[in-house]
């Protein structure tokens, strides 16, 4: 038999039929929805007079525009409140499981799906959200879709998709102390550029990937879309199985043992062909930070911003970006004053991220003048933070713990960064205005965010690690 990639194995398993010269009809095992990209899809079903084909294969959560303070009160912004109420109403009408604000299972869709055991190896998973790629950490084909496609899945549990090209990114070796999975993916994106993987689905492999926790793997897969890839996946292994074994809805299934056996085949065969192969060395990666307005504009924290390139449009875009950020080519970024710090999002809002941040700030104080938003990714993460006493550590260091949600990552709620202010953010996008009109975002790891929060400046976290 011809050796196959992990991606092709899962994809082929889910092709209902192939349209000649066209896309495949791809069956979807798990569909996640949230309040922002679903209302028009439900409206479409009503206009067609049809029901949801497989209601129990869709799970809904409110996350994008909910407040992160006083969640027991009604949402004050009228549009947001209507949108969340519309989701609740749609789920009731179409018999879809819904975890609303204050539900102990509520949270960011890409944090709750895995922690509640809905995401399992070998699945196809979609959601009207580009960071659906997160779930690839479990060895799934998971990718973001538009609202028309959300409607397709609701109507038929399938979508029409063209098979993407395949890329394997191998990261060998060990990350240095103070360098995290977030730095690894920011480094990879800086090497490929923000459009460098467009048209591809990525498999991450190599010893540096294998040594990551599930949380770390989710951070890597999460940002696949930031280099244009539809998604990224990692073959399941002992780390994956141990994680799933801690989740009762999964570990107590009668067929758990047979699933474990079946999951063993979920890896790329020896000799499987990829359209593109890239190999990186983990040891040379330093703590990373972005200086521009797309995630490809990243560098090691102690480097200087590069000079503009040669092509005209490229230079115009590059200079527009630096103007927005208030930076100049050739300058360094270490020591630059910071106004805000955001810890959270589907990229870095998991328990491991908050532990990392808390350990760094423990016994230290937040710098005066820094406003920090510490936002757990879900109610479960929030509870775990409290159970582990991390909230006390944060409080002693003068940080306030918010309630879960997407928050400042896309600033649909009140958590907006004011115009012109600098924010070191653990989220995934530094686009113009992403965290509020005029906000200037520097993407970094939770460790680098903690270092900035303590010093009030862009600081290499390795300087603070052993002090």
């Amino acid at each position: 038999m011809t050796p196959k990639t992990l991606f092709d194995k899962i994809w082929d398993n889910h092709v209902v039929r192939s349209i000649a010269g066209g896309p495949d009809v791809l069956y979807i095992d798990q569909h996640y929805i949230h309040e922002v990209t679903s209302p028009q899809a439900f409206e479409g079903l009503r206009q067609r007079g049809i029901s949801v084909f497989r209601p129990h294969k869709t799970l809904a959560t409110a996350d994008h525009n909910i407040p992160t303070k006083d969640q027991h009160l009604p949402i004050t912004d009228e549009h947001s409140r209507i949108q969340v109420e519309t989701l609740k109403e749609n789920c009731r009408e179409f018999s879809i499981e819904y975890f609303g604000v204050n539900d102990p299972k509520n949270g960011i869709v890409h944090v709750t799906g895995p922690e509640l055991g809905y995401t399992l190896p070998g699945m196809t998973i979609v959601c009207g959200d580009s960071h659906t790629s997160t779930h690839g950490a479990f060895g799934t084909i998971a990718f973001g879709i538009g609202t028309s496609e959300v409607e397709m899945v609701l109507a038929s549990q399938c979508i029409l998709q063209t098979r993407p090209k395949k890329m394997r990114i191998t990261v060998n070796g060990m990350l240095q102390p103070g360098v995290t999975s977030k730095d690894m993916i920011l480094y990879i994106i800086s090497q490929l550029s923000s459009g460098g993987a467009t048209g591809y689905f990525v498999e991450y492999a190599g010893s540096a990937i294998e040594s990551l926790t599930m949380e770390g793997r989710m951070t890597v897969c999460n940002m696949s879309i930031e280099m244009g890839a539809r998604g990224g996946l990692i073959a399941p292994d002992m780390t994956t199985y141990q994680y799933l074994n801690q989740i009762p809805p999964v570990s107590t299934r009668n067929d758990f043992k047979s699933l474990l056996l079946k999951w063993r085949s979920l890896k790329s065969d020896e000799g499987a062909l990829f359209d593109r192969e890239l190999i990186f060395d983990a040891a040379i990666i330093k703590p990373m930070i972005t200086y521009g307005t797309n995630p490809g504009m990243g560098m090691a924290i102690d480097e200087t911003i590069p000079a503009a390139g040669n092509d005209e449009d490229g230079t115009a875009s590059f200079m527009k970006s630096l103007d927005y950020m208030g930076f100049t080519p050739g300058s360094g970024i270490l020591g630059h004053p910071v106004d805000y710090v955001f810890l959270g999002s589907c990229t870095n809002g998991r328990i491991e991220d908050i532990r990392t941040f808390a350990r760094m700030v423990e016994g230290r104080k937040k710098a005066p003048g820094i406003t920090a938003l510490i936002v757990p990714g879900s109610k479960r993460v929030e509870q775990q933070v409290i159970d582990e006493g991390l909230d006390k550590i944060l409080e002693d260091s003068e940080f306030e713990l918010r309630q879960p949600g997407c928050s400042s990552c896309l600033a649909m709620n009140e958590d907006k960064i004011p115009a012109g202010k600098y924010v070191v953010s653990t989220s995934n996008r530094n686009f113009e205005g992403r965290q509020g009109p005029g906000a200037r975002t520097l993407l970094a790891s939770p460790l680098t965010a903690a270092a900035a929060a303590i010093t009030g400046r862009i600081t290499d976290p390795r300087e603070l690690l052993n002090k």
Partner: protein
Amino acid sequence: MQKVKFDVLESTCVPLPFENVDTDQIIPARFLSATSREGFGENLFRDWRYDKSGNKKEDFVMNNSQYQGSVLVAGRNFGCGSSREHAVWAVTGYGFRAVVSSFFADIFSNNSLNNGLLPVVVPEKYLDDLLKTVADDPGTMVRIDLGKQQFTILPGGDPVTFEINPYKKECLMKGLDDIDYLLNIRDIIKAFEFRNTLKYENRNNGYDPEGR
């Protein structure tokens, strides 16, 4: 449901010579709270078109009345970032029917095709020249022939061929809809489910072969 058909389009163009235009620029997140598909056009490129006080930024191309038309020409990697289909609704809501670039982000491209907005992919060098031509002469007319898969600068330019998936091309030309296609093969989908006796049937809910 029948959608607007796309066949041949002749129009002037609006040039946007920036690379990596992300969907947060096309429609900022704070305008995503609507529950319908209408009204996004007025906030297309909101923060590039208007300043904080809501005044038009005169140096932005869409505020220059010389540049009009239903074809947007943009730098490479147009539509990257968020999967929000609202970005496409903003582009079509404003009145564009086609976007030309050297490549598009995958999700934006799919979303466009599902809304009758044609993404036209042309070679990088051709795009650079086109952006200059249109910027220098706002009256430049172009012709997009979907049937022939040709893009031409009028009058008399050499046509450049663009790729489109044959299925999607047929959908656009006939105004057909993927959902109608999927609804028509529900029985085939059910048979697929049965064959696979759903390996990954999850958690609380049992497999229900009859559907609900």
